[in-house]
Structures are given as structure tokens and as C-alpha cells.
């Protein structure tokens, strides 16, 4: 496919498609995403070494495609979503239930042939477990805290979870439908609102995909400012979550201190970039706000402040037996499963999967920065906390390096109204975010955004098995998958 940058996209036939599926099933490649388009489905793959990406497209002119999930389960929810949005049938799919479509929309297949909906929402058959003494606990979609909505169906034997089944899609906003035909600027706004906690990472992913499609070079200063924002976002989220995980283990002191540090990061971000979450600060072509003269001072003292307080909190975490008792060996994610699902971010890295788009795909300016990617093998709540702790330290290092090396100059380049296709993989705090876009005359013809949570939600179901119901909030928080990013 000409005009697809920076990695290739190829149309494949049924034989090649199933050969690719076989390579996924054999663990030679990792599935990055699977999504629908007008008349075809696309599958993004990460090569064996984890450094090259490719997209394969299979024509769906017949309205169907050979199921990937039939041989590679991580594709299951993607296929169910493709069916809901486009109406394409995955042939031999292991699970034919709808996923995002709860039977409440005014149309079926809203991005495909727009069929009329069924008059009544059909019942959703949950999977069953049979055995003596098993009971079900339905939870949600409205949860008992300040959290996003989703439904969890626990099957428990006494206190022990035998099975967890997730049902998501409650916050599906039809973002890809809204983007279709939208001007680039409006689509960028939507991209930055897929998952508010990752707004910078999403904005960078979308912008990089657009810039790749149009072959636009952005000013050097913008490249560095983007990384600065991305690391601030990572630090803020990790701090907030480390505190919240400890709070779910009934240790509120950590939450108080970590959330105070998080607040400092948000205030520094607001002072430097004009918005606490830095929404809409990254735009295709560069960045919308430049730092003023005070900013380096504000950010240096922020880093100093975190460096002064955080190690003591880490020590507190490490030395509190009642806390460790809850986090060590809880919610274990097997490393083979993390590998198979291509789990990104701290979820994968706490289970031995060493992948970080910043290092492995080395997009600028990370190709010129020094940092380590922490990896642990235990896969429990404790390991996920530790990976996050180490990532905070690395991000502080990165922020310092960026402040030293930040070049002067322009921060925006014109993007023009060209056409083309682009793809980007950007490391958000949760893991790698995929953005794929096809542009025509300055408008978005089709855009697909894949949140890291797509590949993390399913393994949470496995990680919770055998734990007690009361540990679910703790496990769930340690994964902290996005509902909005997943549901789109």
C-alpha cells in the first residue's frame, strides 16, 4: 500500500491471513490491534524482535473474515467489537456475543451498513460455572466509588473467586464514528478525550499518526515538549495510583501523601502548559503551548520536591508488613499469559514482558535520552507497584534531561491538507497506545485508536482467579485499566 507510513500495510489473501494468525498463535508475533474499515479489516502486528510493526488488511467485501480469535484468543474482544461496529462476521469465532453494542443504539453496525436495531435489547448470556456451593455476585455498572462504569460477574465458592467475567462497553461514545469525516483539529480533540488520564499520550499518538500520513516534520522543540508532557502525565498517574492501591489495602496514609504529590504535578503542569491534565496541548503539527521563562524553574523544583518525599514513601511501602501482606502474591498474572496477550505497560513489565515503545520503537526524542525500563517477574500486585515506583524515578530522570536539552525555536509546523495513511505506537502510562489514521483532503476518512486496556482487561479475569472477592478492588486498581479508553 503506497502512502502508508512509517510502517508498511499490505493487502493479504485468506492464506496469508491465516499464516499470520498461525504466527500469532505460535508466539512469533504479537497482536497490536484488529479493527474494521470500509470493506476490510486491518490487523497490526509487532514482529518477533518487538521492533518492527506491520499492518495486514483482509478484504471484507463478502461481509466476513476468518476469525483470528479461533486460534489466538487475545483477538476475541476486537472481533466482537468489529462485528458490533461494522457488521462483519468473523468466521468460526469462538464467541459470538455482542461486546460494545448493548442493544441500546438507534442503529446496528453504526460504522457499517447501519441496520435497524432490535426492538428490545436482547438479554446478555453470561458464561456459566457449575459446581456445588458456587454463587454469583453481580457488580456494577455503577460502582461504589469514584470510578468508571463496567459490570463484573463473579462466581465465587465461599470467599474464593472461581471465575470473573467482565462486561464492558457502558461508556462507548462512538468516538471513531464521530471522527469519520471530521477535520483533523476536531478529531485531535476527540483523540485527547478517549481516556482523560492519558490525554497527552493519546494526543501524541494521534498527532504522530497524522504527521506520518502527511509526511510532516515537526519542529524539534515540539518533539521535546511532547516528551516533557508525556513524562509529567506518567508521573502524575503513577503517583495517584500507587496511593490508591495502598488505600485499597486499607493504608490511607500513602494515599494522602501520594495524592499531595500528584496535586503538585498537576499544578506544575497547569502553570507550565495552561491545563492541569494538559488537554489539547499537543496537536498535529507540534504543540499548542510553549513554555515561558518560569517553567524550567517550576519543573526543576517539582522534581526536587518529589525526589525529597517519594523515597520515604517507598520505604514506608516496603516496610509496612500489613500492606505487603495484601499486595505480595495477590492477583498474579502469569508471564506466559502476559506475553501471549502482548500486555503493555506496568502490567506486562511486572510479569516479565519487556516492551516499551519509547525504547523499542525509539521514537524521538527517546532515541536520544537515557532511561531504563524496569521489568519484574512476579506478576503480583506488589510487582506492579514496584514497576510503577521505578518508572516514576525514570521519568524524573527523563524530565531533567529534557529540561537540560530542550532546544529553542518554533513549536508548530503547518500540516496542510494532504492525503495518506499513518500509524503510531506511543507509550502512555498504561502501556502502548496505537493510533491509525487515513486522511483525505484534510479530513479524517477513518481513524482507529487502541487503548492498552484492550489487552489488559482480559488478563485481569485470569489474574483474579483463586483470590478472595475482597481482594478484587486491590487487584483491579493495580491494573487500573481504562474503561473509557477501551469502550471508546
Amino acid at each position, binding site marked *: 500500500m503506497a502512502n502508508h507510513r512509517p510502517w508498511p500495510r499490505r493487502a493479504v489473501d485468506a492464506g496469508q491471513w491465516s499464516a499470520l494468525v498461525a504466527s500469532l498463535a505460535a508466539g512469533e508475533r504479537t497482536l497490536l490491534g484488529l479493527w474494521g474499515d470500509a470493506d476490510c479489516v486491518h490487523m497490526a502486528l509487532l514482529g518477533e524482535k518487538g521492533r518492527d510493526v506491520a499492518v495486514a488488511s483482509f478484504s471484507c467485501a463478502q461481509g466476513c473474515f476468518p476469525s483470528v480469535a479461533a486460534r489466538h484468543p487475545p483477538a476475541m474482544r476486537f472481533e466482537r467489537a468489529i462485528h458490533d461496529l461494522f457488521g462483519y462476521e468473523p468466521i468460526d469465532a469462538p464467541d459470538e456475543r455482542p461486546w460494545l453494542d448493548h442493544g441500546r443504539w438507534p442503529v446496528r453496525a453504526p460504522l457499517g451498513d447501519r441496520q435497524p436495531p432490535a426492538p428490545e435489547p436482547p438479554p446478555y448470556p453470561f458464561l456459566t460455572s457449575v459446581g456445588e456451593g458456587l454463587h454469583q455476585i453481580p457488580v456494577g455498572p455503577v460502582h461504589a466509588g*469514584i470510578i468508571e*462504569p463496567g459490570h463484573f460477574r463473579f462466581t465465587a465458592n465461599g470467599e474464593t473467586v472461581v471465575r470473573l467475567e467482565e462486561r464492558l462497553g457502558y461508556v462507548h*461514545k462512538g468516538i471513531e464514528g*464521530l471522527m469519520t469525516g471530521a477535520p483533523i483539529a*476536531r478529531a485531535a480533540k*476527540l483523540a485527547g478525550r478517549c481516556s482523560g488520564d492519558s490525554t497527552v499520550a493519546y494526543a501524541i499518538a494521534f498527532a504522530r499518526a497524522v504527521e506520518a500520513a502527511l509526511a510532516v516534520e515537526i519542529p524539534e522543540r515540539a518533539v521535546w515538549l511532547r516528551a516533557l508532557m508525556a513524562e509529567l502525565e506518567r508521573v502524575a498517574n503513577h503517583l*495517584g495510583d500507587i496511593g490508591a492501591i495502598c488505600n485499597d489495602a486499607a493504608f490511607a496514609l500513602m494515599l494522602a501523601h501520594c*495524592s*499531595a504529590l500528584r496535586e503538585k504535578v498537576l499544578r506544575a503542569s497547569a502553570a507550565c502548559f495552561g491545563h492541569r491534565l494538559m488537554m489539547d496541548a499537543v496537536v498535529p503539527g507540534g504543540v499548542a503551548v510553549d513554555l515561558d521563562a518560569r517553567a524550567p524553574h517550576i519543573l526543576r523544583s517539582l522534581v526536587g520536591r518529589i525526589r525529597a518525599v517519594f523515597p520515604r514513601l517507598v520505604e514506608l511501602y516496603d516496610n509496612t508488613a500489613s500492606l505487603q501482606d495484601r499486595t505480595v502474591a495477590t492477583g498474579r498474572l502469569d508471564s506466559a499469559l502476559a506475553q501471549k496477550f502482548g500486555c503493555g505497560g506496568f502490567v506486562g513489565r511486572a510479569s516479565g514482558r519487556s516492551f516499551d515503545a519509547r525504547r523499542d520503537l525509539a521514537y524521538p526524542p527517546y532515541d536520544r535520552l537515557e532511561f531504563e525500563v524496569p521489568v519484574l517477574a512476579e506478576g503480583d500486585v506488589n510487582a506492579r507497584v514496584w514497576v510503577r515506583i521505578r518508572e516514576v524515578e525514570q521519568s524524573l530522570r527523563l524530565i531533567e534531561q529534557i529540561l537540560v536539552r530542550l532546544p529553542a525555536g518554533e513549536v508548530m509546523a503547518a500540516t496542510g491538507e494532504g492525503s495518506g495513511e499513518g500509524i503510531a505506537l506511543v507509550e502512555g502510562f498504561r502501556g502502548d497506545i496505537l493510533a491509525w489514521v487515513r486522511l483525505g483532503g484534510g479530513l479524517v476518512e477513518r481513524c482507529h485508536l487502541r487503548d492498552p486496556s484492550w489487552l489488559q482487561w482480559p488478563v485481569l479475569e485470569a489474574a483474579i482467579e483463586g483470590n478472595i472477592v475482597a481482594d478484587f478492588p486491590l487487584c483491579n486498581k493495580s491494573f487500573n485499566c481504562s474503561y*473509557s479508553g477501551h469502550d471508546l
Partner: protein
Amino acid sequence: MRRILFDSLLKGPLTEPAPSGDDPELLALGRELKTALDAWFGGSLAIRMVDAGSCNGCELEIHALNNPFYDLERFGLKFVASPRHADMLLVTGPVTRNMREALERTFDATPSPKWVVAAGDCARDGGVFAGSYAVAGGVGVVVPVDLHIPGCPPTPLQLVKGLLALTGKAR
């Protein structure tokens, strides 16, 4: 741990008289809020937060209301786990069609008298998500709204001001 606890005791609370450069009024607002709550709500207001489709940006800022800087509880406002314990629903997001029924049922489960506050730009009219096949509209399309707090997301201070405006309205 002891060291951290002692330090916290000696250094005093993290809450500041002037919480941020742009708005030195939090404490004053808080005092006003507390007086209103004492007079009209028996000293406390229980809030049930409902995400009806938000991007989670609004939740992050609502969470921040509990951090030591804003510490909303000291003014008598607290977040509760069940709508049955709530005086007020704080709703975010455009209401997605998939969440519409859940929001209606949460509203019905909240005892009267009750208030509904819609937080964030998309809670008003769907915001950037308006017009989507998957979005029912703003919160007001589904349940009666007493107050809207603008912002994308509203900052913690905007949220506190909004809540104060609500208590003012209750009089």
C-alpha cells in the same frame, strides 16, 4: 512510618491558606460552604458520584477534591458508596445510551429531596461527543439537573464553587 506521622504532626496540615496562584479563595469558599451546610443540610452533604460516560478526566479532578489540599470532608461534604445514602448525585460525562438506564435507576434509588449536579462540559449537552449514535445527550436529557459546573474537566476549585452555588440555591 512513625517518622512520617511525626513529621505530619509537626509540620501541620498540607492544606494551604492560598491553595493556588489563580484562586486564593478556597478557605473562604469552604467556610461559606460549611455555614450553608450546617444551616440547611444538618451539617453534612452526602454525594454519590456517577460516571455516565465520561472520558475519566472529570473523575480525576473529583478525586482531587479528597486530596489533602482540598480535603472536602472538612467542610462537611463526603462521597458515599450508595445512592441510598446520598443527598446529591454528581454526574459526569455525556450520558451514553448504554449508561442511560443505570443513571435512571441510580436516580430513582436516591431518596428525595435530592439534587443532581452535572459536572463537566460534556455533562451539559454531550460536549465534543454530542451527535454520536451512542450518546443520549447531556445529563439533563435523562434526569432533572439542578446545577451545571462547566470545565473540561472542571478544576477542583471550580467544583467547590459549584457546590457552594448549589447550597446557595437550596435556600
